[in-house]
């Protein structure tokens, strides 16, 4: 049989198993089309115009009855049969009211189902009693459904509008977050690529201003005393001017920077006017500001200040991001400081090494020279004694009448000397003509100038004594130490007193109740004597010479810090390292062996202390000595 001549059945059903069953039961006698939902079912019906449409009633989206109503308007001649498991009362009536002309109940009976279909195709129609009543009920139901749909749609629309708003807000927040992230990324890039702290801070404030679109950002660092925060970098011209003029905020004050540092947390002023906060004369038109503490490894280092010309410009998000940024800056500052300390330590190590190498060489040299010079003073003394004895002997003999001399007890000794002279001294020297042109043969030539001989001997003795003194100066620091408890201020007072400098020159400031140190008071005293002497010599011819000696506990309370400062001409930077080296002296021919400072270093090193110098051309020089307090 030609399939085209078979009746076309459309089955609209969402359950695949049900569709498969109907297909199997009807396939032999009918062309079975299938749709799995209401809308595609309606579409397929309009396209294919089936001879009969089997409708599941319990469909998602639209119910089978709604599909029926719809198809009735689109395809007025279509044959609609409800096929439902709904056995509730009036289910048949409701289906018929919606436009169906038959109602078949599930489950289907395979034996009769094709015949039931055929009956409807053949013209069977189920008649609904009280058609009007059921029709009305169905219409009411439709209206209700419609209302429900409208409500649903309105709700959806509202929800969409809300979601839209939400999205917009999220986009704004995300954009801002992204900007913050970019700022943080730029700052961290800057931080890892710039080692110079000042440049790092400058770039950081510029990046923050740019990324946040604010007129001012600044970074304050605590001063050494921790009492005020000094602006180290500020954006724009105002920032540069504030930095140049040493702009600072007291930590104890009520500025945002001061509070942020004191409280170790972000401080925010949403409305500068409303808060009656002070206006910064450098930054007119600021309406809100915030400060974030720079918290380093173990201490607050300063604060990051941000200022805006908008009210309430900084959100919680902003503050969180800025705080992250501030922490990065703090890490960078720590790093920069570590680097600086490392440089300094390296420098010091190099200085110590250089000093040690030079000290060893000069030490060995001096030792050798000193060793060779060691016998000179004694030898000279004996020569002088012997010379004077010889002269005395000759004098005694000369005082005798010539004929009596050979009988004198000294005569054999004199003859022995003359014999030795004849044996050891070349004849031309012995009988030389210098000064005595007609010296008789056989007579010893006696140099006429005894004073000159004695003077020469004194020179020899003096020179040897100097060599030995220098030797002992140089290796002096390693003399046996006489260790004792030392009250440093008392020792300083005594040393200064013994130096007898003119009144008004030396100013002292010693902290009270300092712990004692342990050392050799003569050596330690010598160090400060040396430093004060150097300072005094540097002040020669300067107006209002002033030497300040201070002593107090160092930052590390294990040490006492003593400083000797002068207001002299300062030491040029290129000479600053050389002053520690033996034999280096800036005093020219004004004296000084150049051993003073190297001896000081050796003494302080031996005492396990530290000595350092800072000098500023034209402003003066400060020597700092750290000595460990005794345990």
């Amino acid at each position, binding site marked *: 049989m030609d399939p085209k001549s078979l009746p076309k059945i459309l089955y609209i059903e969402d359950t695949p198993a049900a569709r498969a069953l109907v297909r199997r039961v009807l396939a032999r006698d009918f062309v079975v089309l299938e749709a799995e939902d209401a809308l595609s079912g309606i579409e397929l019906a309009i396209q294919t115009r089936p001879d009969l449409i089997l409708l599941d009633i319990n469909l998602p989206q639209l119910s089978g009855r709604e599909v029926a109503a719809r198809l009735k308007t689109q395809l007025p001649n279509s044959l609609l049969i409800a096929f439902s498991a709904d056995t509730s009362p009036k289910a048949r009536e409701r289906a018929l009211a919606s436009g169906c002309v038959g109602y078949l109940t599930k489950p289907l009976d395979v034996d009769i189902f094709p015949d039931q279909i055929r009956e409807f195709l053949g013209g069977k129609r189920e008649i609904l009693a009280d058609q009007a009543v059921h029709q009305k009920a169905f219409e009411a139901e439709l209206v209700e459904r419609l209302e429900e749909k409208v409500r649903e749609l309105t709700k959806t629309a509202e929800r969409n509008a809300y979601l839209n708003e939400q999205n917009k807000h999220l986009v704004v927040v995300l954009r801002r977050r992204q900007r913050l992230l970019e700022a943080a990324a730029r700052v961290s890039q800057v931080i890892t690529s710039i080692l110079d702290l000042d440049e790092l801070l400058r770039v950081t404030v510029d990046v923050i201003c740019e990324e946040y679109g604010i007129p001012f950002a600044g970074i304050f660092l605590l001063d050494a005393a921790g009492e005020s925060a000094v602006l180290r970098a500020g954006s724009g011209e105002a920032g540069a001017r504030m930095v140049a003029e040493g702009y600072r905020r007291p930590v104890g004050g009520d500025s945002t920077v001061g509070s942020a540092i004191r409280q170790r947390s972000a401080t925010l002023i949403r409305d500068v006017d409303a808060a009656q906060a002070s206006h910064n004369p450098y930054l007119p038109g600021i309406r809100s500001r915030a400060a974030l503490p720079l918290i380093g490894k173990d201490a607050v280092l300063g604060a990051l200040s941000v200022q805006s010309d908008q009210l309430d410009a900084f959100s919680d998000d902003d503050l969180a991001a800025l705080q992250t940024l501030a922490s990065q800056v703090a890490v960078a500052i720590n790093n920069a400081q570590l680097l600086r300390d490392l440089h300094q330590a390296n420098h010091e190590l190099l200085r110590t090494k250089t000093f040690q190498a030079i000290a060893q060489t000069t030490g060995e040299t001096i030792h050798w020279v*000193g060793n060779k010079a*060691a016998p000179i003073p004694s030898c000279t003394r004996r020569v002088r004694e012997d010379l004077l004895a010889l002269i005395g002997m000759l004098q005694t003999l000369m005082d005798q009448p010539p004929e009596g001399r050979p009988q004198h007890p000294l005569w054999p000794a004199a003859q022995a000397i003359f014999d030795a002279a004849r044996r050891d001294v070349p004849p031309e020297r012995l009988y030389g003509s210098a000064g005595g042109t007609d010296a008789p043969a056989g007579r010893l030539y006696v140099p006429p100038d005894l004073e000159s001989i004695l003077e020469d001997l004194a020179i020899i003795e003096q020179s*040897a004594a100097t060599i030995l003194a220098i030797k002992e100066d140089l290796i002096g620091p390693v003399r046996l130490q006489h260790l004792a408890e030392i009250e440093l201020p008392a020792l300083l007072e005594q040393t200064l007193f013994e130096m007898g400098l003119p009144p008004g020159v030396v100013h002292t400031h010693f902290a009270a109740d300092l712990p004692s140190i342990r050392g050799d008071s003569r050596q330690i005293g010598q160090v400060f004597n040396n430093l004060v002497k150097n300072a005094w010599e540097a002040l020669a011819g300067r107006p209002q010479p002033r030497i300040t000696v201070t002593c107090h506990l160092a930052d590390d309370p294990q040490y006492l810090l003593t400083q000797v400062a002068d207001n002299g001409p300062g030491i040029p930077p290129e000479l600053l390292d050389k002053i520690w080296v033996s034999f280096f002296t800036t005093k020219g021919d004004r004296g000084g062996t150049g051993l003073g400072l190297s001896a000081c270093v050796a003494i302080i090193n031996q005492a396990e202390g530290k000595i350092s110098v800072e000098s500023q051309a034209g402003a003066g020089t400060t020597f700092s000595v750290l000595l460990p307090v005794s345990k």
Partner: protein
Amino acid sequence: MPKILLVDDEPLIQRSMQKTLMRAGYTVEAAGNCADGLKRFEAAEAGGAPFDMALLDLNMPGFDGGEASGAGLELLSRLIGLRPDLPVIILTAYDEVSKVKDAVGRGARGYCVKGREQSLLDQINAIFKEP
């Protein structure tokens, strides 16, 4: 007159010191290394004319002949070992703190920086004046 043994390997220093001490009235025998110094000391002990004091340099050729830092310390110990009450003065060019401490620990009476012969003489005189 007290008899002193002087051991120093620097001939000029040794001779100058010897002259200074002899002029001050002491009998001085000089040796230029540890082995010679010990030999002279033992010979004097055996001969019944022992030394009354020894002056020892610290850095000089050791008993094995090589230059040794602190060889004088070993000689010091041997001399003190032979005669525990022997006054010994250490001669040092450097002020070698640790070695001097070591020497004092081994029984030396004192030390003297070379080149200061007058103070050495004072020190020796003081020791012989002791009751």
